[in-house]
Structures are given as structure tokens and as C-alpha cells.
């Protein structure tokens, strides 16, 4: 009886009695969701343009953050090390296209997926050999980002917002706007959309597929840097970053694999859902449900809407 109360009615009365706290939880969830969206964005870009489900995106986030901090610790000025990191990710994109993607052209999707799992392990090892495996602190102050807390007066109480989360939200918005312009208004963007629609069609009108792949992986690398800086600032640059990034997978399922807005909305839903579940329902079942809640939410979602919120509907009759 107590258990039923803790699951069915307790949380709801808690929400009703303290709406300001509820608002704070939702806001915190939204901010965490922005972080997931940043990682999911990289997945969607690559999937749209090449049909490759890039499992290594999470490790690319870790790798870029490690590289940035690594250069900074060598005494390179912050902005220069940022440039160097961008250069590294471009080189990495070229390398991946050469070594992994080109030989595997026309293989089944699942083979490419498993190749990116291999890539994940490879980058994990490489990143830690190059830059060491201890937890590093990202000096975000040098990028003009400050980690403070803002207090917002609402109704009877006040809501605390982390300045860092707010910055992340702004950066994510800018990034999406930039990507939208890039995809819609530039020649390269047009070529990318053509490749996404139809590989063979794009090739027959003279688009060089391999260059496009390098561009896409470089852009995904760039998104990974942004996500890496934000995550790194939030929780330190460390190994677990790659695992947190796995959370982007349920986000993708929720939003649909081929939709940029889907990645954003999916991230926000997962972020909010996870926080609410953890705060209100977590204590009833022993806590730490954040680890799997997103996956189970995605699983249930899959049963009813396999293409995600905004994904393309694939009609198959089996």
C-alpha cells in the first residue's frame, strides 16, 4: 500500500504542493536535455548524409574535449588550442573516410555500425594514450563562459539556474541556426542534402561522394567539440563522458534518426522526463533510475511510433 502510494499519488501531490520546485526540476531537465541534444545532433548529421549510424559520436565528444584540454595544458593559448582541436577533428574526419568508410562502401548498414563500434574503442584508447586518462578540468573562463548561478523570482519562491547551462542552451540554439543556414543556403549544404536523399542520384549529377563524407564527418567533429566543451565544463573531462554520450541514443529514437529538430526536442523530452522521474519517482524504487529511464522510455516509444517524432516514415510490411 505504501509502495502504491509512493508510485501513484505521492509524487503528484508533491508536484501540486510545491509548483516552484517542480518548475526548477523541469528547468534543470531542459538544461540537461540541451546537452543530450548537442550529442544527438552529431549523430543525426552523419546519419542523414551517409546513412551511417555513428556509434563513435560519443567518443568523438570525449576525444575533442581531451584534445582541447591537452593542447591547453601544453601551454598553447586557449583560442589557438581551439583552432588546433578543430584541425585535429578535420584530420580525423579525413582519416575515418579513408580508412574506414571508403573500403566499406555498399556494405550492409549493420556492418558499418559495427565498424563504428570498433572506431569507438580505437579512439578511446588513442585519446587516453595521447593525453592521459586522469580527470582534467576545462578552463572555460578563458572562453568567456562563467559558471555561476542566477536566481529567478517566481511566485512565492525563487528558481536557481546554472549560468553554464544557460550558456549551453544559447550555444545549442546558435549551433542549430548555423547548421540550418549551412544546410539550406550554401552549395555544400545543398550537396549534403542531395547525398542524404539518394547516393546514386547525387553521384550522377557530379557530387563527389567522398568529399561530402569528409565534410559531414568534419561538421560532426565540430559539433562534437561544442558538446565536448559544454559537457567537459559541466562534469570535467574524463572517460565517463563517452558513456554519458550513449544517452544520445534514446534521444535519437525519440526524435527520429533523420531529423535535426527531432534531436533537439527528443533531447529536451528525455532530459525533463529523466529529471522528473528521478526526483519524484526515484525514491520509491531506490533511486539512480536516471541510468535506464531514457532507454525504457525510448523502448516504449518504439512500440508505438517506430519512426520517432519527426523521422521519415518507413513503410514495411513484415
Amino acid at each position, binding site marked *: 500500500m505504501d509502495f502504491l502510494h509512493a508510485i501513484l499519488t505521492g509524487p503528484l501531490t508533491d508536484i501540486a504542493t510545491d509548483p516552484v520546485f517542480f518548475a526548477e526540476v523541469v528547468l534543470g531537465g531542459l538544461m540537461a536535455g540541451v546537452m543530450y541534444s548537442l550529442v544527438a545532433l552529431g549523430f543525426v548529421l552523419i546519419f542523414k548524409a551517409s546513412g551511417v*549510424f555513428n556509434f563513435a559520436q560519443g567518443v568523438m565528444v570525449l576525444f575533442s574535449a581531451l584534445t582541447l584540454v591537452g593542447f591547453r595544458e601544453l601551454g598553447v593559448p586557449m583560442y589557438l588550442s581551439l583552432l588546433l582541436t578543430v584541425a585535429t577533428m578535420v584530420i580525423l574526419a579525413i582519416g575515418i573516410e579513408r*580508412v*574506414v568508410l571508403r*573500403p*566499406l562502401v555498399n*556494405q550492409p*548498414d*549493420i*556492418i558499418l*555500425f*559495427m*565498424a563504428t*563500434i*570498433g*572506431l*569507438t*574503442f*580505437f*579512439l*578511446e*584508447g*588513442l585519446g*587516453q*594514450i595521447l593525453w592521459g*586518462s586522469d580527470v582534467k578540468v576545462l578552463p572555460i573562463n578563458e572562453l568567456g563562459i562563467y559558471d555561476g548561478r542566477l536566481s529567478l523570482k517566481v511566485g512565492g519562491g525563487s528558481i536557481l539556474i546554472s549560468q553554464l547551462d544557460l550558456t549551453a542552451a544559447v550555444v545549442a540554439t546558435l549551433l542549430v541556426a548555423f547548421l540550418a543556414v549551412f544546410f539550406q543556403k550554401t552549395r555544400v549544404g545543398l550537396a549534403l542534402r542531395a547525398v542524404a536523399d539518394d547516393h546514386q542520384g547525387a553521384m550522377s549529377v557530379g557530387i563527389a561522394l567522398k568529399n561530402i563524407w569528409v565534410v559531414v564527418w568534419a561538421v560532426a567533429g565540430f559539433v562534437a567539440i561544442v558538446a565536448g566543451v559544454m559537457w567537459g565544463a559541466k562534469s570535467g573531462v574524463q572517460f565517463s563522458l563517452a*558513456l554519458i554520450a*550513449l544517452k544520445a*541514443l*534514446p534521444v*535519437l*529514437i525519440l526524435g527520429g*534518426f533523420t531529423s535535426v529538430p527531432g534531436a533537439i526536442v527528443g533531447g529536451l523530452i528525455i532530459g525533463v522526463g529523466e529529471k522528473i522521474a528521478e526526483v519524484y519517482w526515484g525514491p520509491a*524504487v*531506490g*533511486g*539512480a*533510475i536516471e*541510468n*535506464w529511464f531514457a*532507454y*525504457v522510455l*525510448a*523502448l516504449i516509444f*518504439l*512500440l508505438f511510433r*517506430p519512426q520517432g517524432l519527426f523521422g521519415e516514415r518507413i513503410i*514495411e*510490411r*513484415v
Partner: protein
Amino acid sequence: MLYREAGQFKASYAADQAIFPILQDRWIVIVALIAAFVLPTAFASDYWLQAVLIPFLIYALAALGLNLLLGYAGQLSLGTGGFMAVGAYATFKLTMAFPGLNILVVFLLAGLCAALVGLVFGIPSLRIKGFYLAVATLAAQFFLLWLFNKVPWFVDYASSGTITAPPRSVFGVMVTGPAASSAARYFVALSMVVLFAWMAKNLVRGRIGRSWMAIRDMDVAAEIIGIKPLPTKLLAFAVSSFLIGIAGAEFIFLYLGSAETLAFDINVSFLVLFMVILGGLGSILGSFLGAGFIVLIPILLANIPHLLGLSMPVDIQKDVELMVFGGLIIIFLILEPHGLARLWQIGKEKLRLWPFPH
């Protein structure tokens, strides 16, 4: 020359349908089996049994299970660690509740528990496939480990949160617990893996295995020729989880002795997946080759710098291991997508002609 089937005529249907129709294959299997049962118990040191051979056999069983699901039925699962944990915890609960029950029977029952859980998490495979299914099985991985971690009932309310293998004997010989000898545990693991490899081999060359392969190759065509996707896929999940569950039970009871959920984290899932890919998708032999390969690599990496007179710090060695695993996966997918088992097959083709050129 050495490996020629010319002149071996089959005079009956039974001979034609034999599990190893070629004489040389039969001899290889018989010799390998005798060697596997006799040599290590007589000659191998405790270190070899404990650190190499026992984990190899256990991983081989897990890889066999995943191979049935991924290689034969074509359903990608990243929840191997979770299903192994189900087997381990079910064994623990069952043997604590019924101490008199033969531990081998308990292993089988635990496998059935894992099969049930596998069935539940296999249900989404009806509507989704490919990457979507991979993410769905990740849900199994995280949810199951969380469950075993959070609910104290699963560890019999032990304050440490770990499960420990109690001493159990089979036919008067200790096989689990601290008192069991490595040789006895090796013997149990070997018998189990031989039994299930034989079962799996017969399964995949019969009606069930063929319907799995039909689903894998083209699900629409499979349904048109009268294979029901629902029971076929679910059966693949159940059989695969059954084997993986038993492997998980052995992992605790025959190998580690005691462990918490950390022993079954997502890295185990990836490790077993790598064994299947490297060994050969859709090959029983491949599961064994892949498991042996992956178990041996860390040992080689630990010893090679030593032999060359270099010293390598442990953390660097771990990172190199990751890079080697990842690199090998990519290389194998590009150069030999059918894995080590295909290399063995190519070797046999060569032996057929050797030493003559044509």
C-alpha cells in the same frame, strides 16, 4: 591431398545427414575433444586453467549464444552483459533456496530464467530492427543491471551487495566455491560448452536454423514462404539468452567466485560482440575462435613488451588493448567479414590440393 573427401561414399540417409559428413572433420573433432578433455587436466598449470582456459570456455559459450542471435537470426543485441547477469543471479538465488539441487541442474534452470527475460526484451524486435533494436537491447543492459544493484532480494540481503559462489559438488567432486580445484571447474565448463555447441550445431542445420537464416537474409521473402517472423525471432532470442545466461552463471560460479553487477557491464556486451565478429558471423566454430582470440590478446599484449625487454605501464597497456581491439574489428570487417572461421575454411580448401598445384 590431406583433406580430400573423394572416395567417401554415403550409403544411407543417416550417413548423408551426419553432423560431420567428412571423415577428416570427424577425426579432427574427435582428436580435439580428447585433447581438450585430457591434456589441460594433466599438463596445464593452475594459472593457465584459471586465467586462460576457463574464461575462454565461458566466453565461447556466450559468443555461441550471441552468434545464434546475430549471426544466424540477424538480430543485433547489445544486452549480452545484462542477460549474463540474469543467469548469474538466478543461479545464486536458486542454489541458495535449494542447496540440495545439483548445481548443473541449477545452471540449466538459470538458463531458462535468462531465456524468459530474453523473450520479454525480444518482443520489440517484432516492430523494429537494426540500430533501433540495438538501442532497445541497451535498455535491457542498463535496466537489468540497475535492478540487480538496487533490489537487495537478489543478493539475499548481503550488505556487500555481491553474490558469492557457495560450495557445491557434482558426483562428490567440488565444482564451485573456494575449495573447488581449477581442473574440476574446467571440466564442468568444457562439458557444458561441448554439449551446447553440439546442440547449437544441430539446431542451425535443421528447420529452426534455416528459418532463422531466412529471416536474416530477407524477412519479407521468409514470410512469403511461410515462416512466421514472430515465433522465429522470439525463439532466437530465447535460445540465445539461454546460452548467454548459462555463460553468465558459469562466469560467477566457475571463474570469478564472487562478483557484483559491475562484472557484467556494457563492456562485456561489446567484448562478446567482438568475439562474434572476429570469429565469424554465422559460424559455430567462429564463436570458439573469436573467444580464444579475444582472451589471448590481452595476455599477449601484457607479455610482448616484457619479452622485448621494454616495460609498459598498466594503464597504457589497457589503452593499447582498446586500440588493438578497435583496430582489429575494423580490419576484419574490411578484409574478412566472415572472420577467423572463414580463414579456417580457406585453409581447408588449400589443404585439399596441397602439395599439388591443381
